[in-house]
């Protein structure tokens, strides 16, 4: 039996946003509770950053995750809890009172969709989707406090979304005269989630954000009650990206049809030249002629075959590549600052490529590398007492293979999922890292203590899916990434070769010294004590020194080379300090007095070594105890990159008034960083 149109009509109705959301939550990054927690943080933080930057404010952002007590009043440990409150506070421009409800409780409402410009958010779906997820899983409204200037009062809202109508419902709307922040926005969302550390965790996301955005200051209050502080590394805001009109080469036919309908232009010729970039009035005329259409036709009337013809003529027209000043790369200095700030290593370099175009979309690739273990840390750790190895044992850790870590970004936003599907990953594994002194198995990441940073800035980043987790594989993009990696890799290779050479010499002399002792003593025994073992030893050592260039080695190792060439946008860290393009804010960091606390945090009583220019939102943070720091060091896996970030226990100072008491005292614990090492 066939279904009639009438029967179908009874089933046809508007799909509610809630339904749409529930069916498509995976597209929006809410596929499981763990991801939902991260996505919510991410949407709020991205918005804060976008807003601050647009307003020209150096962002200072605080993220807090709390476990919600169960109905019986008991609070589960974070790893077992399933309900959380996420609060994100910024020092941004604030949101005018009237807009708040729609922004936070209406899907597809935002300021960024209607323009083609590099920004973090795009579809106006982010924060309201997070709010909706929270509402669907806990029934709780989104809470927002916002203040647009110190002179005005703050407003606090509790808003829900009417899931049938996709309209906000305001439950509470209060004026707060004495909000503790002079300006900014605070969003709280209660949701069902799962908290986990390690790969693709909130912690990792924030750390990655801090790397790619060294101009921001980030505080993160973990559900365990720790406070992680990512300091600001540079004081300059990224150049604000300009808005551009789409380039004809980057437009799809469906979009083109829509533009024909939506345009404000009355004439076809004007439409072409005003709504697209790089189409001059002249070119527009020629394109119309080519398509056998009048330049004076009404755009809205161009449909069907005519539109198709026009579209293909537009595609085939010889046009200049789109302007690239709409892009805002992070910049070599800032990448360097971010890497240096967050990752403990011995070599850093950064490359910003010049703009390129894929399918009419301008883009810029940036690559950074951080390599090695912090020589300062190495020096501090007292050498383990020589434990003789039994047969079959090998020196500690040598058989563990540590793979390099890839940090992926699109428009400064870290990408945490689907690494292997990402164009950046493909490019990294296809690079012959052996050329740069790294080992690598076929089709795998290089091995060793290496961080590879890849950023794509574009007015339109081609993601493989709606959830924006991996960059699609375009030849032009892949080629650029590889070129960037090669440039940075060559610098790394040069450094490694130099270092290896010095190490080799050193190892030789060292080994010779050890072996010579054995040899001389064996000689003494063979000669039944009739010779001076000490003299023999001395003679042989002298010879070793002469033959293996001892002095030269010492010089290289102690970095006493005066002619040390200045490498551009490269930092090299040696036991005696860092040299190269060290960011100013971080350069002033006093070297640790006792050599025990390398740049982790300021000492108690000492003035803050890196005063933030923008008054920090959350200035008073408690330095953690020395004992804990020791602990941390012990837990540090060899070869693990470790952040220069301070992790602070929240014990004395009141950070957020009443909340402070709720936070439990932290038990000492290891500082194994997530997503690291093995």
């Amino acid at each position, binding site marked *: 039996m066939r279904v009639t149109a009438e029967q179908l009509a009874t089933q046809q109705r508007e799909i509610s946003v809630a339904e749409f959301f529930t069916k498509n939550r995976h597209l929006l990054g809410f596929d499981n509770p763990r991801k939902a927690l991260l996505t919510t943080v991410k949407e709020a933080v991205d918005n804060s950053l976008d807003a601050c930057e647009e307003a020209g404010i150096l962002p200072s952002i605080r993220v807090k995750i709390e476990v919600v007590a169960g109905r019986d009043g008991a609070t589960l440990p974070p790893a077992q809890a399933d309900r959380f409150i996420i609060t994100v506070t910024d020092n941004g421009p604030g949101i005018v009172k009237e807009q708040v409800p729609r922004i936070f409780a209406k899907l597809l409402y935002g300021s960024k969709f209607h323009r083609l410009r590099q920004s973090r958010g795009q579809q106006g779906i982010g924060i309201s989707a997070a709010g909706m997820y929270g509402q669907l899983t806990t029934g709780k409204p989104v809470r927002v406090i916002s203040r647009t200037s110190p002179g005005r009062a703050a407003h606090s809202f509790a808003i829900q979304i009417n899931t049938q109508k996709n309209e906000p419902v305001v439950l509470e709307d209060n004026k707060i005269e004495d909000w503790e922040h002079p300006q900014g926005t605070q969003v709280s969302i209660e949701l069902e989630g799962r908290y986990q550390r390690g790969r693709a965790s909130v912690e990792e996301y924030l750390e990655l954000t801090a790397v790619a955005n060294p101009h921001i200051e980030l505080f993160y209050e973990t559900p365990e009650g720790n406070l992680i502080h990512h300091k600001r590394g540079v004081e300059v805001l990224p150049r604000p990206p300009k808005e551009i009109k789409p380039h004809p080469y980057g437009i799809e036919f469906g979009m083109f049809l829509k533009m024909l309908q939506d345009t404000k232009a009355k004439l076809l010729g004007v439409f072409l030249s005003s709504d697209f970039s790089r189409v001059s009035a002249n070119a527009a005329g020629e394109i119309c002629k080519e398509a056998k259409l009048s330049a004076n036709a009404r755009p809205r009337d161009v449909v069907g075959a005519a539109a198709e013809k026009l579209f293909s003529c537009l595609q085939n027209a010889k046009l200049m590549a789109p302007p690239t000043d709409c892009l805002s790369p992070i910049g070599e200095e800032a990448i360097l600052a971010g890497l240096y700030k967050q990752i403990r290593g011995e070599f850093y370099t950064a490359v910003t490529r010049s703009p390129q175009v894929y399918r009419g979309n301008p883009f810029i690739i940036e690559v950074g590398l951080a390599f090695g273990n912090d020589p300062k840390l190495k020096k501090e750790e007292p050498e*383990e007492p*020589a*434990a*003789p*190895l039994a*047969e*079959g044992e090998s*020196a500690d850790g040598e058989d563990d293979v540590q793979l390099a870590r890839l940090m992926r970004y699109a428009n400064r936003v870290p990408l945490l999922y689907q690494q292997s599907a990402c164009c950046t990953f493909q490019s990294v594994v296809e690079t012959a890292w052996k050329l740069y002194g790294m080992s690598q198995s076929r089709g795998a990441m290089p091995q060793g203590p290496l961080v590879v940073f890849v950023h794509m800035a574009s007015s339109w980043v081609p993601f493989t899916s709606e959830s924006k987790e991996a960059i699609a594989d375009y030849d032009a993009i892949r080629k650029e990434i590889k070129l960037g990696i090669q440039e940075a890799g060559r610098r790394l290779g040069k450094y490694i070769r130099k270092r290896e050479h010095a190490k*080799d010499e050193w*190892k*030789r002399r060292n*080994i*010779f*010294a*050890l*072996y*010579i*002792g*054995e*040899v*001389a003593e*064996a*000689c*003494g*025994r*063979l*000669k039944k004590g009739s*010779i001076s073992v000490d003299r*023999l030893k001395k*003679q*042989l050592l002298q*010879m*070793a020194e002469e*033959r*293996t260039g001892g002095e030269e080695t010492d010089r290289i190792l102690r970095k006493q080379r005066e002619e040390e060439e200045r490498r551009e946008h490269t930092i090299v860290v040696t036991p005696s300090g860092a040299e190269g393009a060290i960011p100013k804010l971080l350069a002033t960091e006093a070297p640790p007095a006792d050599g025990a606390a390398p740049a982790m945090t300021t000492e108690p009583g000492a003035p803050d070594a890196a005063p933030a220019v923008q008054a920090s939102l959350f200035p008073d943070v408690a330095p953690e105890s020395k004992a804990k720091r020791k602990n941390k060091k012990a837990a540090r896996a060899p070869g693990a990159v470790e952040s220069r970030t301070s992790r602070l226990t929240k014990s004395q100072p009141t950070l957020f008034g009443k909340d402070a008491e709720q936070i439990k005292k932290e038990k000492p614990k290891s500082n194994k960083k997530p997503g690291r090492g093995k």
Partner: protein
Amino acid sequence: MSPKAPIRKPAKDVEGRLVGLAEHVIECARTNKEPAFHIPVRALSNVEFSKSRRIIELKKAKTERQLLSLSTAKKFMQTMLVGDALSVLQREGLSRSLREIYYRTKHTIEGSNENTFDGQEESDPIIEDLEVTLEALREELHVRAEAAGSLVGPMTIVDDGDTIDCARLGKGGYSVPSIVEPHDVHIKKCTADFVLLIEKGTQWNALNEDKFWKRFNCVLLTGNGQPPRGVRRFARRMHDEYKLPVYVLVDNDPWGYYIYSVIKQGSINLAFESMRMAIPDAKFIGLSSRDPQSHGLPRNVGIKLNDKDIARARELKGYPWFQKKEWQLEIDFMLKSGLKYELDSLANKDFRYLTTDYLPKKLKDKDWLD
């Protein structure tokens, strides 16, 4: 009759040669020269088959082992340590095993957590290096290998002052020690007509149980697989001192061929010892790849050659000492049949087939390969 195998003179003043290692180092240090030992290369590329003497001999290639080179420094140090340990054995008149020398020389290098030796596989080659470099045999260096040989037959020997009648040792036989130089083991009397050197201990057991040696007046000798040095050396001494022919009985596989060839002309690794160990007149009595056919062994007691066997057989075919036509045919025949046979498979015909039929017939017909 083919020319006699050359007799090597025993090494004199082994201790002096070991002390010489130290003297070299001391002299170099004094004259500011880099200490280095020159060690004969122990590889196929550096051995040759002497047609006239019919043994494998070492050629002249040497490697330099320097103290001040990254790749050889550790080995240099190890060489000194082993040399020192060996000199102690000389001085104190002891003989010890490879393993004990490994343990004796193993320690942590002062100021590091590096071991002088990580495993015995590092110290064993050093001892071989010293054997070739100092031209002293392992026995002369007082290094014992495992005693894994058994002997039975009409002979009387004096071992460590004890007189042993090898015809009265029951099922166990005389356990051949690893050092069997005249000084250690004296052959007092031997009335046997030949020596039968058997690859497998199981077959030796069977032959002894059947008293094969009584019926055929021979010495039964086995090394349980690749015969250890003591067994080879002892066979050579019986051959030299009592003019006994030596017949080799092995499984019919490439490994058996190789065992035979080591007994006959020495091994590649220890080519310098051929002069004292090899028995160029030794004969290959079986199992030949033709035997299964001539003795009516069914195909189904054969074992398919695996890839390794085939590769090994081809390799053997290329060795200069397997170039005789009979040998090329023998190996080809095995490759063509694609099968190998164990000595044990003769039991398929009869439990006593080896003693009552196979060997008597072989000996009667002089059916062996040279």
